[in-house]
């Protein structure tokens, strides 16, 4: 992206969204609406996860139907140490990243031997394994989930328990993830991944061992997503295996596709629209008929189907067409 790109409607919208996210705590403080800062923090954390999924899905064509497992692993990497009174964030976050990366390495090495629908299903199968593993770990709450009574501690004076501090930790993390993914996809490494997405055989014929490249991308994606999970573990006081069920992975894919997979800002738009719909659609429906809000999944599902049928390239694609 260079300077002239920003002075288009699409670039201006991207800049506006980032700017809005950057000043969100100020706005919510002025409006005295701490609740909205909560939603915004969730948006940031899930945006990091979506950005990580976009790296392999949007640029590598690897439809991982098990990315929620990484969020769960990251969250439990915070929850389990705290259960044993280990509060250091310098332990939690590296642990989340390391375990996620290791899990990605093992499952990716097997999954990437398959392609297409088999890849979708095998990544799902692995995440189901993790899901059932945590369900059966009675020590850490099993089915009922695990209470996290504290937050990660970093250095004295920086308290991530404070909503604004934590919000900016998430914001900086998201910017870092965006920058990282942006640099990766525009590097030589990224070009191999993108080349392999459009024609894997040709890339191999050119002499690139695409398997290794794809596996590396998968591990990086998993590690970033595990980091998002560690943030999630800090954000919520309660984690449970439910957060890595297969429907969660489906939602994550939807966020990426809704925003526009294979674009820098797409995942952020996707998460933003998804969470805002989730939050305000029920309230909106209640305006028309009392308690209609509990049925918000109905219009939500219809929107999902319509987006898939008619909006190619997601929100980012719409902005592209507007540009021209």
């Amino acid at each position, binding site marked *: 992206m260079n300077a002239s790109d920003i002075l288009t409607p699409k670039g201006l919208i991207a800049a506006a969204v980032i700017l809005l996210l950057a000043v969100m705590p100020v706005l919510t403080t002025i409006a005295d609406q701490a609740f909205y800062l909560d939603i915004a923090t969730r948006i940031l954390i899930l945006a990091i996860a979506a950005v990580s999924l976009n790296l392999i899905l949007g640029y590598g064509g690897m*439809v991982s*139907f098990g990315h929620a497992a990484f969020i769960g692993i990251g969250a439990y990497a915070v929850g389990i140490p705290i259960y044993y009174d280990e509060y250091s964030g310098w332990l939690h976050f590296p642990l989340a990243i390391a375990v996620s990366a290791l899990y990605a390495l093992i499952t990716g090495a097997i999954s990437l*031997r398959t392609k297409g629908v*088999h890849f979708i299903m095998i990544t799902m*199968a692995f995440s189901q394994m993790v899901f*059932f593993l945590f369900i059966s770990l009675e020590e850490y709450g099993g089915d009922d989930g695990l209470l996290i009574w504290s937050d990660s501690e970093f250095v004295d004076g920086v308290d991530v328990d404070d909503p604004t501090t934590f919000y900016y930790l998430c914001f900086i993390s998201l910017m870092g993830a965006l920058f990282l993914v942006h640099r990766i996809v525009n590097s030589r490494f990224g070009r191999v991944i993108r080349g392999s997405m459009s024609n894997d055989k040709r890339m191999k014929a050119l002499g690139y061992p695409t398997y290794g490249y794809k596996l590396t991308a998968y591990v990086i994606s998993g590690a970033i997503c595990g980091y998002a999970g560690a943030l999630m573990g800090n954000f919520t006081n309660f984690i449970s295996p439910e957060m890595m069920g297969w429907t969660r992975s489906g939602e994550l894919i939807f966020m990426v596709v809704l925003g526009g997979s294979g674009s820098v800002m797409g995942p952020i738009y996707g998460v933003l629209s998804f969470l805002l719909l989730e939050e305000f659609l029920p309230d909106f429906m209640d305006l028309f008929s009392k308690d209609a809000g509990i049925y918000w999944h109905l219009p939500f599902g219809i929107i999902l189907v319509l987006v898939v049928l008619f909006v190619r390239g997601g929100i980012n694609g719409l902005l592209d067409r507007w540009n021209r």
Partner: protein
Amino acid sequence: MDTALLITQLLNGLQLGVLLFLLAAGLTLIFGIMDFINLAHGSFYMVGAYICGTLVALLDSFVLGVILAIPLTLAVGYVAELVVARTLYARDHLDHVLATFGLILIFDTAVHLFWGAEGMAIPLPDWLNGQIAVSETILLPTYRIAIISVGLAVAVGLYVLVTRTRIGMLIRAGASNRTMVQALGVDIKRLFSLVFAAGAAIAGLAGMMVSPITEASIGMGNDIIIVAFVVIIIGGIGSVKGAFVGALIVGMIDTMGRSYLDQFMKLFMSDQNAETAAPAVSAMLIYILMAAILAVRPQGLFPPRVR
């Protein structure tokens, strides 16, 4: 080992296998012919159960309720194909996953809207509710035998339909080479609508059969559909035979794993370790099996010949 318990567990495994087959049969044909991933297949399982429950309450007859609910579920499947699925065949798998994920939300909420959030119990007639005494110690519940019989009857019926009839020939041909079948002048779209609707009805039948045991509830199809996918991937996508064998393997392994894995693991580790590890491993067993089969034999056990 307790024989009566073993027989009960074998029966449970067989029952789960048969139910999984009813779901997987439609799924594998839809997948095989049109290369279409239908996550919402489990919704027909749920819708069938609810329609049946309403009819049973209305008519006061379980058998009549099931018989009438089957064509109604077929109609629901037909409409879903016409409105959503048909427009998606030309798209990639990602779009299938997303759109049918949306369909699940729509179906779940629609059921919530029509029938409420509470589950729906379906009462059994007395003649199905008893037990058959095989010997003094071994009693088999009549209804489980009935489920297994219905499932096996459907399996035989499907086998005859697919291998012995003209329409079955077209289905098999469609699964191995869609373009060629089209080129020979067969309206593959109509054939597919038919298969989709029939698959929905069979999935609905599975839901109707299971509901007297577990009661019908919202989202009941969402967990079992994932297991049905495991079945068709193990069996080989597009193969009814593969779906049948895969379903029985998965049903048996899952049931047996849950009941006997701890005893098996005690053979080579301490009792305490076995008791902690067994529940985790048994819940993961079918996914481990699937990952192993996919890693070694990605096309599944019985892939349709020629692609």
